[in-house]
């Protein structure tokens, strides 16, 4: 049988992508003694203890709950403010529109490291430190511009005649927007929501700076697996696997839009 060279290249590349993940999953199913004492490609005594530790200890699973809370808040806020704005950018030209659009982009590009300390002081001074809303608002810095750009990309594909016909039919703007326009760009909204979710989920620097106990994200919780008895590798690996799961679950639905999303709605 002849193997096509392209299939060979892809197999190699996918192997390169999957092997580190396989190793993480492999470690998460081992006991700590097996991890440190022997070297095995597959877990010898398969154990779910590492996952049980996470799912039964509040200081662990609350990390997931906290992450999910602020990520959800962020997605809701981002989409709510971005939808009308994206509509305005795609349909109207107004004073300063290009500058504003550019300014939004600079925020997507801004390094979180620059903002970490000022954010900490800003949210401390308004009494929001260590709350979910603080992280959600901080992540708006890059997620709102992202949502505006993606939605604008989708909205420009909807012919303007639809808007005009609806207005002639007597729809008011809010009614038209919710009843007619939003269903038309439903896939765009889904994609924007997915990317807001993703970027808020993967970000660590800001969420770690803005929280201490009550709203601590799972990503920051993971840094505490170093204990007196040494590193708890198994639990660390299990926690890592669990953070990959949400992305892996929905990835299938957005597979054709991933390039578009990362390129801010263009392509």
């Amino acid at each position, binding site marked *: 049988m002849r193997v096509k060279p392209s299939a060979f290249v*892809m197999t190699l590349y996918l192997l390169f992508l999957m092997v580190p993940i396989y190793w993480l999953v492999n*470690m998460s199913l081992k006991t700590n003694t097996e991890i440190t004492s022997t070297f095995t490609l597959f877990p010898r005594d398969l154990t779910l203890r590492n996952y049980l530790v996470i799912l039964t200890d509040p200081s662990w699973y609350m990390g997931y709950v906290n992450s999910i809370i602020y990520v959800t808040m962020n997605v809701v806020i981002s989409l709510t*403010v971005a939808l009308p704005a994206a509509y305005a950018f795609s349909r109207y030209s107004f004073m300063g529109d290009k500058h504003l659009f550019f300014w939004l982009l600079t925020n997507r*590009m*801004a390094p979180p*490291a620059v903002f970490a300390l*000022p954010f900490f002081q*800003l949210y401390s001074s308004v009494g929001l430190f260590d709350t979910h809303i603080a992280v959600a608002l901080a992540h708006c810095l890059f997620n709102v511009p992202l949502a505006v750009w993606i939605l604008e990309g989708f909205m420009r594909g909807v012919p303007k005649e639809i808007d005009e016909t609806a207005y002639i039919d007597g729809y008011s703007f809010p009614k038209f927007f919710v009843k007619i326009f939003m269903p038309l760009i439903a896939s765009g909204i889904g994609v924007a929501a997915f990317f807001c979710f993703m970027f808020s989920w993967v970000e660590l620097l800001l969420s770690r700076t803005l929280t201490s106990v009550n709203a601590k994200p799972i990503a920051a919780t993971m840094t505490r697996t170093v204990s007196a008895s040494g590193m708890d590798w198994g639990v660390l690996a299990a926690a890592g696997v669990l953070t990959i799961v949400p992305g892996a679950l929905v990835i299938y639905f957005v597979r054709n839009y991933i390039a578009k999303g990362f390129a801010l709605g263009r392509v």
Partner: protein
Amino acid sequence: MEKTVNQKAWFLVLPVLVIVAFSAIIPLMTVVNYSVNDTFGNNEFFWAGLEWFEEMVTSSRLHDALGRQILFSGIILAIEVPLGIFIALNMPKSGFWASACLVAMALPLLIPFNVVGTIWQIFGRVDIGLLGHALAALGIDYNYTNDSLDAWITVVVMDVWHWTSLVALLAYAGLQSIPQAYYQAAKIDQASRWAVFRFIELPKMKGVLLIAILLRFMDSFMIYTEPFVVTGGGPGNSTTFLSIDLVKMAVGQFDLGPAAAFSIMYFLVILLVSWVFYTVMTNLDREEQK
């Protein structure tokens, strides 16, 4: 699409303006404020003028971090862009395997940054990691925590692992938009594979590739979490990139003035690249409408 002039559209944009201004302009002004003041704590500030900027422009620490950063971004681009194009050219065009490849390739992009770091931290360890163990078994002396070259290789390979798929996905999206007729014409002309790539595929991918390069440049330029988790900026300072250095300075040592001056110069670079990005994007949009 022809846009109508309507100043009332500002009302639709207002919520975005308010929320982004709250999380962008206020912090940025705080940074500007710090950058021209000196403080000894207790919220007392003294005017320092451009002192911090002068200090930062001449500081060897910043130069070193900047040098490492540019080297890192350069290596990343030199590897990821050609590799990404190569992968995109080899991807299945349609059917089940195309979907499967898309999903598998996107997976690393959706992993939290610190988990990416953790994965490679574990994977590369000589005692428990597959990579470290395999290299040791081959007799290669590899230890990313002690040897700065090994640390660099680990961080670069990690970034290639993490982000090459982004370049590949964008290039793939560009390739998909080429009509079959172009390939048929090339076949009639008996064009070589290289000529097809050079004169059909590359020009058609130009736009998306520019976006990919700019995105990769920006994101690698502000990389923080992944190298921080794997190497912590070490051994020594060998993998201390700009963001890591900045956080060390601002949060670790609380040198607010220099850190703020540093931030502002950092930000100006970002602004410049964003402008290039924006120009590319708007030109693409215009071409699309033709």
